[in-house]
């Protein structure tokens, strides 16, 4: 009886104790441990920085940030990787090619800007202005990506909030004019450029000069669309100017680009990469690998744990350190030939003389001798070195038979009956995968460190969004279009420092020279497609014709002469080839100047005007 009483009493006590615990307000109003509130986020600079890292990571690209595949879809290279991606050599630019419509990202940024105003009480004004400026820079960059692919797009700078009325029309914003989007980018940069007080000197976060670099590039695009679109026999435009900029605005845009470029060039913070003690070609390669290069204005950094597979993708075949991969992006002959000779003559390689006879070379590299040093920094060609070792490139052996040279080829790394190399370990080999089909490999961005080509550790060299070399070319082009005599100096400076040309190598400029200079300097840096579009020559360069040396990617194969007893025995000749894997000439239609808008987007917003030809 007594023990039963004690038992009930203790149960009663325990239950009462539970209730006592509940009384505490703290228990019900604890800070959640699995989520971050807006108040916490917008009052903690470190957390905001974490959010910004996410946004920087989402900056858009088409063929940038070590995007191996897309770079194989233009005229600078073809795909020599796994055959399952051979469609890149057979690409038909669809109406939606290069389509971009990331309003999720725009909304994220707008939301951040508004929430920082709403919730932040602990941040100093300096911090607030800094973060505000970075967010608006990222938004301006995204709008630039939108306008260069789609033309004028709806300019949304605040959250769009549905009022629940059943009528969504207040959320359906029509497209701005193409010029209005460029003007928005310019105005934003003017508003924020002096607010970056925390990130001065940074290479990976936006600052004044990063914003000016965006101005330099975006205003150049706007100026050239204003000029060259109206020079077309049938300019591409819409009645509401969602596409097309009046020619009268060209000078204004070029001037805005030039003034930004000049300000960056004048800054002691940046200089063209030019260390002593190594060759110009080596320097041009190292410019992208050296994270202390003062040429770089804005980069996307990589490090252990955040890596990219570009070296795995593109390393020279016999230098690969993984069991697969290598050789995916292989530069085209037309790119190699666009690098001029140092004496200023055209870059066409001298493989045959005027009579059609092969020109004989003692060494394979001789045919590439005296070329623009940027060729060495961009492309691994036969007879050159990689990782301080000679590459083993030779397509086959040329045998003298019946009064002409006949070619013998074998598998990679085979020996001919004379005991010497038949086909090198690095090819080139036609119609094969993971070996160059063009006779060239990529050097730019491919790491010298063998470990960088091994999965999963991979490579951590950074991606340069903006660098001073481009700014010089932007300045040169804008000045040229404005008939400003300083144009020549900007272009010559880049040719001298990066290309190894003598000082003042050019005495006169044409737009074609500038176009070629951008092709060779900025190859594989996500410029070519957009440059050809803004000059309105994409449909002429990529004209879809099988006979065109630019629209079709060609290669150049080196052969060793085996002709015992003859003075040419053991020397080399070169043969131009059209790789079997390259299927279809690049064909850029008028419809590709502005990508089509997704029909789902058009369904949601009937106020949107379609782009021309769609």
């Amino acid at each position: 009886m007594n023990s039963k009483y004690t038992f009930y009493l203790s149960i009663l006590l325990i239950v009462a104790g539970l209730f006592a615990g509940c009384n505490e307000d703290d228990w019900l109003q604890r800070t959640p441990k699995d989520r971050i509130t807006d108040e916490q986020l917008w009052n903690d600079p470190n957390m905001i920085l974490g959010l910004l890292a996410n946004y920087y990571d989402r900056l858009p690209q088409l063929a940038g940030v070590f995007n191996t595949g897309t770079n194989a879809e233009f005229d600078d290279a073809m795909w020599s990787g796994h055959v399952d991606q051979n469609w890149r050599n057979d690409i038909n630019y669809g109406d939606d090619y290069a389509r971009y419509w990331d309003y999720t990202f725009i909304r994220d940024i707008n939301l951040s800007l508004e929430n920082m105003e709403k919730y932040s009480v602990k941040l100093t004004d300096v911090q607030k202005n800094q973060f505000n400026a970075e967010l608006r820079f990222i938004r301006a960059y995204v709008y630039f990506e939108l306008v260069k692919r789609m033309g004028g797009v709806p300019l949304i700078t605040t959250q769009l909030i549905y009022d629940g009325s059943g009528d969504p029309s207040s959320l359906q914003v029509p497209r701005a004019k193409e010029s209005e989007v460029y003007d928005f980018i310019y105005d934003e940069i003017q508003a924020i450029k002096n607010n970056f007080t925390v990130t001065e000197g940074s290479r990976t976060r936006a600052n004044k000069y990063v914003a000016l670099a965006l101005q330099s590039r975006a205003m150049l695009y706007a100026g050239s669309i204003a000029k060259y679109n109206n020079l077309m026999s049938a300019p591409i435009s819409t009645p509401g100017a969602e596409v097309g900029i009046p020619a009268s605005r060209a000078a204004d845009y070029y001037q805005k680009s030039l003034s930004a470029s000049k300000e960056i060039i004048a800054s002691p913070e940046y200089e063209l990469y030019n260390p002593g003690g190594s060759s110009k070609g080596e320097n041009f390669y190292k410019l992208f690998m050296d994270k202390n290069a003062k040429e770089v204005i804005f980069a996307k950094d990589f490090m252990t744990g955040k890596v990219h597979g570009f070296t795995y993708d593109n390393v020279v075949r016999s230098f690969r350190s993984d069991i697969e991969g290598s050789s995916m992006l292989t530069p085209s002959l037309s790119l190699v030939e666009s690098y001029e000779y140092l004496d200023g003559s055209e870059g066409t390689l001298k493989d045959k003389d005027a009579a059609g006879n092969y020109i004989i070379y003692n060494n394979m590299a001789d045919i590439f001798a005296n070329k623009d040093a940027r060729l060495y920094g961009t492309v691994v060609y036969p007879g050159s070195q990689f990782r301080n070792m000679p590459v083993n490139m030779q397509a086959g052996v040329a045998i003298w038979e019946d009064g002409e040279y006949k070619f013998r080829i074998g598998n990679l790394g085979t020996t001919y009956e004379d005991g010497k190399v038949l086909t090198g370990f690095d090819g080139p080999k036609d119609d094969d995968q993971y070996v160059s089909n063009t006779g060239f490999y990529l050097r730019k961005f491919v790491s010298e460190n063998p470990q960088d080509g091994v999965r999963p550790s991979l490579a951590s060299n950074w991606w340069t969004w903006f660098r001073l070399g481009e700014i010089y070319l932007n300045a040169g082009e804008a000045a040229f279009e404005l008939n400003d005599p300083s144009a020549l100096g900007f272009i010559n400076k880049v040719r001298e420092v990066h290309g190894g040309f003598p000082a003042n190598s050019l005495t006169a400029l044409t737009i074609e020279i500038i176009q070629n200079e951008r092709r060779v300097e900025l190859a594989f840096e996500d410029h070519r497609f957009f440059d050809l579009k803004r000059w309105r020559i994409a449909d002429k360069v990529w004209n879809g014709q099988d006979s065109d040396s630019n629209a079709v990617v060609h290669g150049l194969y080196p052969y060793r002469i085996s002709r015992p007893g003859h003075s040419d025995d053991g020397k080399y000749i070169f043969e131009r080839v059209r790789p079997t894997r390259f299927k279809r000439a690049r064909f850029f239609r008028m419809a590709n100047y502005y990508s089509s808008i997704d029909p789902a987007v058009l369904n949601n917003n009937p106020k949107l005007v379609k782009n021309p030809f769609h």
Partner: protein
Amino acid sequence: MKRNYFYIILCIGALFAGCEYDNFDEPKSTLSGNVVYNEKPVGVRTNGPQLELWQDGYALRYAIPVYIAHDGSYSVSLFDGQYKMVRKAGGPWEPQLNDTITINVKNNTVYDVPVKPYFTISNESFQHTAGTITANFTVNKIAEDANLAQVRLFIGHSVLTDQNKNEQAMNADLSGITPGEQSSLSINLSESLKSLDEVFVRVGVRANVTNEFYYTQVQKISLN
């Protein structure tokens, strides 16, 4: 034991029975015809210009692309119903975005789509003499606001011969071409074409507002 087998068979049978509800029938009707001007089919680049089909009555609208063969013919598999055909921009003819054609598709419907090319070529004839092909033709201006950009003779070794796929091609000197009057264009065949028994030829004309040619129908020319 026997009972077990019975159950297994029953279960498998049930699986098959379910399939019927999951699948839609494939579209069984076809819409076909030619793209025509003045009741003559318009030659195009194979798989080049496109038409669009739309269907009303659904919340979301997506275009059905219609591809056109080199001779101007097209064919689409559809469900029965009412469709709208749009002659969109980008072809060798004037876009007629607001002048929609309504087509009722039932079983095998044949419909010729009328278009208004910027330019056409008529009265074309081709002669071959000793490795030279001469084309005689008349360029006609149809649309008022387009200018002549290119007149081009194409030679190929297959029936799919056009601006993108050809073995040899030659531009006419535009100053020598007057719309409505006869013009001619000669080309010396390349060595590799001369060795063939026959080649395929057509003439194209392009207006400045498009990058697609209007082509004559492909003709086979015997070289022997």
